[in-house]
């Protein structure tokens, strides 16, 4: 009965009602980029490359679980393989919509779990060009979003959204995002500083289908001022692997279960 109603209603709607607002595009993009599946297990390789070409490698297992709808609470569990001085360290994040995350770090050399004080917006993730916010997402309500234009990037038909932070706390004055019209993944992002100068560029370099979810398996963030770039690849990625709630506790932070970190 409901379905028939829907079909009738949709048939009566004018076509342009299907064009999404900027807020809707960003909401769908957030869901596609940061919240697909009930959980995610990904082996992540990060290369930090300096202007002169010197490379440093950070390799970790990342487990992520959603608690609620896209945009809602998430928990992250990370286990480091490389470099040697952080091997076996684990890192846990409880991410909340609308407020800074809670973070814990386990230091195996002294068997100690500590909370870490950090602001999501300004903290580089393990020294890379990505901030915590780039990794786990920014609260959509913190920005005003507007559709700027439509543009094709490579093979992707994109909607270009301008997001302007509502508060003046950010180091960028606005961000342009090229959002794929089908997958809703961000294909490119440009960050402009207070002088309107482009200084940071994100690009999705490889997209693969993982269990029906289009997934960015290679991405990079380049700082145009320093020439430093960070390349991230998912060596392995899988969704709906059945991560238990109990993983995100001090117990497993200290003794990460083998099956989740190999």
């Amino acid at each position, binding site marked *: 009965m409901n379905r028939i109603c829907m079909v009738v209603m949709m048939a009566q709607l004018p076509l342009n009602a299907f064009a999404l607002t900027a807020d809707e595009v960003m909401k769908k993009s957030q869901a596609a980029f940061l919240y697909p599946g009930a959980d995610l297990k990904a082996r992540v390789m990060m290369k930090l490359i300096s202007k002169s070409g010197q490379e440093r490698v950070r390799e970790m297992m990342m487990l992520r679980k959603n608690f609620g709808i896209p945009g809602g609470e998430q928990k992250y569990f990370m286990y480091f393989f490389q470099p040697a*001085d952080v091997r076996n360290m684990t890192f846990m994040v409880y991410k909340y919509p609308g407020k800074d995350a809670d973070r814990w770090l386990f230091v195996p050399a002294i068997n100690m779990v500590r909370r870490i*004080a950090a602001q999501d917006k300004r*903290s580089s993730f393990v020294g890379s060009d990505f901030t915590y916010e780039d990794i786990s997402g920014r609260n959509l309500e913190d920005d005003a979003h507007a559709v700027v234009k439509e543009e094709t990037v490579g093979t992707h038909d994109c909607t270009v959204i301008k997001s302007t932070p509502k508060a003046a706390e950010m180091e960028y004055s606005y961000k342009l995002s090229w959002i794929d019209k089908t997958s809703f993944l961000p294909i490119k992002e440009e960050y402009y500083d207070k002088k309107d100068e482009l200084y940071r560029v994100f690009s999705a370099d490889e997209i693969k289908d993982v269990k029906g979810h289009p997934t960015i398996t290679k991405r990079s963030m380049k700082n145009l001022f320093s020439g430093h770039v960070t390349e991230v690849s998912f060596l392995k990625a899988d969704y709906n692997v059945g991560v238990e709630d109990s993983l995100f506790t001090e117990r497993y932070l200290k003794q990460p279960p083998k099956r989740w970190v190999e």
Partner: protein
Amino acid sequence: MRKRWTDLTGVSACCLFFLLLPVAALAADAFLHGFVQGNQSTNTEEGNPDGKDFKLSEERAQVKFEATADPFRLFIKSDAFHDNIDSHSILELREGYADYTSDTWDTRIGRQVITWGVGDLLFINDVFPKDYEAFFSGRPLEYLKKWVDGAKVGLYPWFASFEVIAIPYFEPNTYPDSKRFWMFDPMAGITDRETQDPYRNFRKAETALRIYRDVAGFDTSLYYYRGFSRQPSVMPDNPLTPTRLTLFYPELTVYGASLQGRAGDGVLSLEAGYYDSRRDRGGADLLLPNSQTKYLAGYQVQFWEDFTVGVQYYGEYLMEYSAYGNSLPPGFPKEKRLHQIASIRLMQFLMHQTLRLSLFAFSGLSDGDYLINPEVKYNLTDAIWAAIGGTFFGGGKEWTQFGQLDKNDNVYTQLRYEF
């Protein structure tokens, strides 16, 4: 005493190795990691009491072996080092344990490091052994924590988590060696000293319990420890004209609590503990420490990218103070009833977190003394890091906590290749 450790270490290492060899052989996977390290610390103010110029000069190699065959895991961490000052080499088992893990409980048996409490270099409920000489002479910070030989059981019912620990072999703190460090000693003239054997005495087994859970977003823990003070007390053979001193570890029970969580833009830490000196509750026995109440409050906040500041306030309140005062012989320095310390830690990462500038300082609010530890650490590559720093003491009086170490200022270097 050092020799003794080595004996024990060797024996336990062998036992563990043969006991767990079958596990290792069956293991689904095994790993070998470790490092080689050079570490030196040079006096900047005065030579050591025995005339030498270095607080520390050593080459060290560490091997970490891990084998897993679910639900069992074996871990061994062993150091071999050559001490250039005393010209000897030592093999030391730093950790060596077997883990068993099930859904509802787990256990770890063997030599292991246990860290409790929320203080930053201030320990109330972390009643486990420390190596203060390592800290004062510029070794990497992980060497401040010593191991315990014992068994730990973790229980995880829905309402809270439990850590139950039994330690049959007592391990005392390591204090600076009197050949290398200038320290206050009220009975320096008496060189005939012996330490009561705290080892291998099952009747003296220590027990400890921690119960922890989340309470309204705060990591909350309750602690209990029944064992011995790891700081020795001194018993003279004759109180009036002593010729021989016996060092012993008095009975101690600790009850405590801590919490840590977000407050404003930072992380708030609170901790307290009651030190019950079981043999001297009245406080009248000069040879035994009085009971004490200890507490700390800390706050850590990030001010800008990769720059964090942590501040702490710490207090020790001596119980039965008048009884203590009455028992003190004339001429002995009298401790204050309330001993207070403040600390600050500044940390700035630069160059994509490969360069770390840090400054840690203790300020004795009651005694007017201090400890300052600046350090620069740089990761030359992903495998090699180098650090240079200093440990500077001063202020207060010649018997106060940091004031007595005044002449021990040193500058240290650490260089490590990790694989």
